[in-house]
Structures are given as structure tokens and as C-alpha cells.
């Protein structure tokens, strides 16, 4: 049985609430029978997207909110992170060991597919992973 989709909307883009959201997403992923290594990638990429929202999307104003939806399809898991602020691509730091800008690199490397679409209304990050179609019959 596939679990109900994960839906968590209107979460403040602040450190403590984003940690709680990460724990809830991890619990949902593990309840779906996803193996630990995939679960780690899923939660890391999702958290980096959330951290980018906290860092950039609501720069200069009060903390905005973020919506997270995750769905387990046959053979595929998808996480969608939506914010209503202004996504900013981090300015690259040209020094060899730069301090910033690794979040997006981790996000892209940890997901099988990552799509970031930015518009006037905010940004939608869609992450997906290919899974064993029948993870619990092995």
C-alpha cells in the first residue's frame, strides 16, 4: 500500500520550523518503505531547497512561508517545494574554497532530477527520484 501524499503548507521559512519539517518528511519517506540511502538523499535535497528559501527568498523582509508536497508514485518519488518570494541564484564565490554556493550543488547531486522554475509569484522546485518499483518485495 502506498502512503497518502505528504502535504505541509504554510511553514515559516525559519530554522526551527524547517528542521521540524525535515523530520516529518523523513518519517513519511521511511514509512513509505524507502531504503535509508535514498531517504538520506531525498531529505538532504529537499532541505537544501528549503534552506535556499530561508536564505534568499525572503531576504530583507519577515520570514515567509513555504509549501512542501511529496508523492510516492509507482517507481518514483517526487517532492515539490513552493515559495512565494524571490528566488536568488547564489552569487558564485570565485575563490577555490568558497564559503557559499554548495547548497544547489548538493540539491542537484542528491536528486535524480531537479527542476527549478522561478516566476513573479515565487519559485517551484521539483525533485524526483527513481525507485525500485516494488521496494518491499525482495
Amino acid at each position, binding site marked *: 500500500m502506498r502512503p497518502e501524499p505528504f502535504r505541509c503548507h504554510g511553514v515559516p521559512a525559519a*530554522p526551527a520550523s524547517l528542521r521540524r519539517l525535515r523530520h516529518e518528511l523523513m518519517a513519511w519517506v521511511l514509512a513509505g518503505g524507502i531504503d535509508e540511502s535514498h531517504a538520506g538523499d531525498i*531529505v538532504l535535497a529537499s532541505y*537544501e531547497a528549503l*534552506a535556499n528559501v530561508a536564505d534568499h527568498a525572503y531576504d530583507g523582509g519577515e520570514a515567509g512561508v513555504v509549501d512542501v508536497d511529496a508523492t510516492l508514485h509507482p517507481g518514483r518519488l517526487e517532492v515539490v517545494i513552493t515559495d512565494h518570494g524571490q528566488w536568488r541564484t547564489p552569487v558564485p564565490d570565485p575563490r*577555490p574554497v568558497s*564559503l557559499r554556493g*554548495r547548497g544547489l550543488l*548538493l540539491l542537484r547531486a542528491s536528486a535524480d532530477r531537479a527542476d527549478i522554475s522561478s516566476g513573479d509569484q515565487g519559485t517551484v522546485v521539483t525533485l524526483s527520484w527513481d525507485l525500485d518499483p516494488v521496494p518491499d518485495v525482495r
Partner: protein
Amino acid sequence: MTPSTPDLPATELAVTFAWRGRAAVLGVAGEIDLVSAPEFGEVVDAVLARGPEKLVVDLREVTFFCSAGLQVLASAHRRLAERALCVVSDSPVTSGPLRTTGLDTWIGVHPTVDEALT
């Protein structure tokens, strides 16, 4: 390694500290994310202020690690001599982000503290 951490900043992370000759060995346990990374940075700063020749950060008890933690390590790397910062990791939770981002080119990743010290 002594379990006590006199004079290090208070943090939600469980921290251990010990000298091994001129090398400082800092052990951290817990989740390093947006909540705790600033505190992790303060602890690393406090250790660097003691002037170690080498810093070994033991991340084996860390259960979550992301770019916020990498930023603290990159900052520490810049303030030490080349190859003077090492990390101890036996899990992809912590070694994965270091390798994925190529930071392991500058910061050695070792399975044990003893191997990090050699």
C-alpha cells in the same frame, strides 16, 4: 578523549574536545543544520583560537549534515595551514556532502581519528 568541554561555547550539539600533541580533536554529535550550524561555527572558532597546528573534526556521531555545515568547515580550512583540517567520517551522511561538493580535495576525510592524525 575527555568528555568534558571546558570553555567551549554552549550548544545543542554534544561536543568533545581533546589535545593530541599540537593537534586539536573536536568531536560533534547531533544534527548540523540551519539551527545548529551557527553554534558549530562558534565552537570551531573557539578551538581555532587556541592555535592548534592541526584540527580534526570527528563527525561520526552527526546524523544530518548539509551545506550549512560545509560552510563552517570551509571557513575553518581557510584559517589553517594547507592540509591542517581533517574530518573523521564513517557514514555517507557526512562524507557524501564533502565528496559531492569536492571539498574533500582540501579537507581530508578519514575513517578514524588515528588515521586523521597520521
